[in-house]
């Protein structure tokens, strides 16, 4: 649909598509963007390697989606709400999630669902598309309180086939909630390519069904995502309601470490997609933002952070059996306490 052209700020060679945008791009933004993309890329690599070594469980890599995740997260304010999926720990880390806990989550630890105090980051939604409604509800609450905080819901291309996607966008439209409906169209839902997920050529055009603004951006272009987010956020904060953003990106690797993509896509597919970090690097070099010293420092700092997070994860206290019982209710039923106590007693007797 010509109504939803793919928006770009920089092309794949890292050149500005429109030189007028040069002024909008400041050093701080560039360095911040590069830093976070490099950071979560390194995290992702580490997580994959830990998984291979059996040091964490099944893990869903986000390689290739760093620009979309970092730019969208950086555009938020710290009081905003984030409702991620299982693949959005890149966005979560950028927005302030704890790295140790993020590793813990992928090691089957419930502590990984708990954000740092004050951070409004929901635990990753596993049932597809369900979190969209939570974001709508939470941002509706902000509107009712009269704040200008917003909520962002992350979801994939596959998620757009679920009923909750539709009910969420419809609610957002009807109640004009300050919600960013942020889609990462990474081309696949496990093995199903986007062309088979829906008959529509774009996800952005689905906004028409709810008469809400929709936009389609190059999700591997950090700046395109960032500026489109800014626009949508501004609209949301000023009473303009929700926006659907389709960030067209690419899942470079497997769906999860348990998945074997060679079963369903040839290795050539996607070879032409330019890595969002390389694109950023090219841009930085093209426009004088590349500073070897800064880069080196950044890399080193990130590596240290990650190593120490892995250490902390691995020396974390053992999973606490009582946690399984103690957080189900604020006012637990007597029978549940009995189940707990008799099980703990049994364990102690061992």
């Amino acid at each position, binding site marked *: 649909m010509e109504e939803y052209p793919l928006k770009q700020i920089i092309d794949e060679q890292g050149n500005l598509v429109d030189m007028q945008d040069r002024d909008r791009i400041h050093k701080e933004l560039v360095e911040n963007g590069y830093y976070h993309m490099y950071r979560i890329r390194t995290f992702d690599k580490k997580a994959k390697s830990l998984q291979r070594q059996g040091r964490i469980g099944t893990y869903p890599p986000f390689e290739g989606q760093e620009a979309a995740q970092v730019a969208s997260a950086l555009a938020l304010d710290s009081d905003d709400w984030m409702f991620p999926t299982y693949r959005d720990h890149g966005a979560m880390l950028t927005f302030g999630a704890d790295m140790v806990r993020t590793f813990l989550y992928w090691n089957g630890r*419930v502590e990984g669902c708990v954000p740092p105090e004050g951070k409004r980051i929901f635990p990753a939604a596993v049932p597809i598309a369900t979190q*969209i*409604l939570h974001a709508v509800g939470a941002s*509706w609450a902000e509107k009712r309180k009269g704040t200008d905080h917003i909520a962002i819901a992350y979801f994939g291309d596959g998620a757009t086939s679920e*009923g909750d996607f539709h009910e969420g966008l419809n609610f957002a439209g009807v109640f004009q909630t300050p919600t960013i409906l942020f889609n990462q169209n990474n081309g696949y839902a496990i093995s199903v390519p986007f062309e088979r997920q829906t008959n529509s050529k774009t996800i952005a055009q689905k906004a028409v069904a709810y008469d809400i603004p929709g936009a389609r951006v190059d999700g591997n272009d950090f700046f395109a995502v960032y500026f489109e987010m800014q626009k949508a956020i501004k609209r949301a904060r000023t009473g303009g309601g929700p926006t659907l953003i389709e960030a067209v990106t690419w899942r470079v690797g497997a769906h999860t470490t348990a998945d074997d993509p060679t079963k369903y896509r040839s290795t050539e597919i996607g070879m032409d997609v330019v890595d969002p970090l390389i694109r950023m690097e090219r841009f930085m070099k093209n426009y004088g933002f590349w500073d070897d010293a800064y880069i080196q420092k950044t890399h080193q700092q990130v590596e240290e952070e990650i190593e120490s997070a892995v250490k902390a994860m691995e020396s974390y206290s053992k999973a606490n059996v009582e946690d399984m019982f103690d957080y189900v209710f604020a006012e637990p*039923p007597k029978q549940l306490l009995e189940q707990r106590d008799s099980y703990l007693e049994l364990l102690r007797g061992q």
Partner: protein
Amino acid sequence: MKTKRQQSKDEYIATKSMTMIQAINDGMKTVLENDETTLILGEDIGKNGGVFRATDGLQEQFGEERVIDTPLSESGIIGASVGLAVNGFKPIAEIQFMGFIYPAYDQIMTHVSRIRMRTMGRFTVPMVIRAPYGAGVRAPEIHSDSAEALFTHMPGIKVICPATPFDAKGLFISAVEAPDPVLFMEPLHSYRSTREEVPTGHYTIEIGKGKRRIEGNDVTLISWGAMVPLAEKVAKQADAKGISCEVIDLRTLYPIDHDILAESVQKTGRAVVIHEAPRTGGLGNDVVSIINDTAFLYLKAPVERVTGFDVPVPLSSLENHYLPTPQRILTAIEKVMYF
């Protein structure tokens, strides 16, 4: 936003004769007045005041911001309520009939009931889901389901089902004030069937406590919601035949009050469970288990269950055959008496 519920807590200023639907309406009014974080949302609950008039007058009094007509979207209602609840509001969501709660099952099962546990209490979603349930008013298909067992088997949510106007209002206010999510089932058959004196102010009834409605020695009849008046009626008939029945109203279906069951069945040694939902998988089986666990040595006969049959609720011309009848209950009582 502040809660001013303390102010009026448990001041039984005055009472008024109310039907159950009036008591529930009054309960909503009370919480809307006392706690400005509460809001009501659902289909046709605003201007229309609800298809049963449960929310009659509330939008007029509290405005469209607090009594909200939503799109026709059950998953939407519950999913949005999760977001509202996690962000400081206390949603009271109406599902128009319990048979229409199924589209929201995923949201309730995977989020409403799990968010506290998943986040170790960091995020909580206290909310009340109101749902009229049950057969006997010649409603169209699907409108008459009794789906309690689908929720009592769902760790993380409490399930309440009152039988009288007084209990309905008191338990409703408790549900709203509870820190945990609550499914509040309303026996639509009992909405207008009787009146009772109900305090006009704020009062609560403890969640998780059953109530002995009739004292007796020979057989314990256990039921909830719309089956309670039926059990009471049959208890009187049995009395005339010389069988003394104790009638227990569970009131809370999760967690069930084990103590009241244990105490009663240890006394009578005989029990009949009565519910509307189909027998297989019905909550009656849980009651049998509780009795097995707590009164095994006292039992003089196998526990009997009088329930809906293992069929979907039929269309209205046959619904009275689907529902437990006095005769079926009496037969069961005699069966446990003369085992």
